[in-house]
């Protein structure tokens, strides 16, 4: 018995010929006039002019405006003690990391709002860049100290992040659903990523524990859990029409 199929004489060209014949046999699926009329009547009943979704730059700008407004609004109503505890460099690095993440997530979300559009920015790259950027900003700029009350100090931050991120993700979904028609892990992770980064801004300014372990575990850890959970929900609901 020959193990290599090529040795058996079946070449790509033969497969190609058979596929051509298969494709030709498929092409006899002609549209009947009755079905054509039925389709036309069905669609004509709700036929109104529509406004196309804005250009990608417009969508990105819209997401970033909501991001900035949401973050500013939460900062305004929450405590700002963390802002006074951070140095200028720490503030600058965190603004760069969280703002950069927001831009990346907005870009990838805007591209998902046109079906059949090539994703030039893979989600893995967006998650990697924003994650590494934020982790680097924290590890390089914040002190590595932990207190004895690490857990009791941390869980209120994590639960607040959870409580704020879910409605924020819903807001971004309401904005995106006009174009993001189908559920997917990518869409879930993108929406959660944008919401989480928005919530991390006021959380950073109100947190009185400006130490790297606290920020990484309680702020970053909850962010990872939320993004992962949203991706899982998207995967479970995959291909479902959500618009």
């Amino acid at each position, binding site marked *: 018995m020959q193990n290599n*199929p090529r040795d058996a004489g079946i070449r790509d060209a033969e*497969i190609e010929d058979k596929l051509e014949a298969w494709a030709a*046999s498929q092409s006899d*699926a002609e*549209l009947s006039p009755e079905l054509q009329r039925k389709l036309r009547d*069905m669609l004509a009943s709700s036929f109104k002019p529509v406004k*196309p979704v804005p250009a990608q730059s417009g969508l990105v700008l819209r997401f970033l405006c909501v991001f900035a407004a949401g973050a500013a609004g939460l900062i305004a109503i929450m405590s700002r003690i963390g802002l006074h505890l951070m140095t200028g460099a720490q503030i600058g690095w965190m603004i760069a990391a969280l703002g950069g993440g927001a831009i990346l997530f907005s870009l990838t979300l805007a591209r998902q709002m046109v079906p*059949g559009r090539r994703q030039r920015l893979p989600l893995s790259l967006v998650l990697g860049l924003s994650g590494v950027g934020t982790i680097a900003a924290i590890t390089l700029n914040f002190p590595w100290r932990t207190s004895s009350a690490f857990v009791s100090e941390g869980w209120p931050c994590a639960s607040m992040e959870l409580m704020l991120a879910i409605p924020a993700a819903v807001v971004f979904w309401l904005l995106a659903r006009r174009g993001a*028609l189908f559920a997917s892990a*990518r869409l879930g992770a993108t929406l959660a990523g944008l919401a989480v980064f928005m919530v991390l801004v006021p959380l950073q300014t109100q947190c009185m524990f400006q130490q790297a372990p606290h920020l990484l575990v309680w702020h970053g850890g909850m962010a990872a859990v939320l993004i992962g959970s949203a991706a899982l929900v998207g995967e479970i609901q995959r291909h479902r029409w959500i618009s």
Partner: protein
Amino acid sequence: MTQYQRADSDALDELVRRISPPLLRYFGGSRFGRNDAADLLQDCWIRIHRSRHTYRSSEPVMPWVYAIARHTGLDAYRKRRRLESREVLVASIPERLHRTMPAERREQDDFDRLVAGLPLSQREVLVMLKGSGMSLEEVAAATSSTVGAVKQKAHRAYITLRRALEKVRENAK
């Protein structure tokens, strides 16, 4: 397509006339039979119609159409699987008799069945590439993947078909 967005009824007629046959082929070539293809086509057109605002004139039409068609098909497939899991088979359906066919036609018939038995992701790539004549880039856009991934799926489909065809020939001997 832009005129369709502006509610031009002639554009609607033209689109239905042009897009429906490849969509019918796409659904017919998927896991669904040709009888279900017409139902899926109607479902797909409703979704195309409801999401016509998401089309951008700067983008090619067919990847946009196929992206919607693909999700429509996969959503229907998932619903059907859920229903089938609750069904109980009361009688087996006899295999189609094709012994009386000429050898060449019989082999093509076997080949059609082999294509139908390919994994969904590989078969849809073949349907788009061969059945609809789309480019690798267009298929990549329609399936939310990369050109490399599309090439890999097509390559795997070729390998699977070659092996299966070899097995069919060996059995025939």
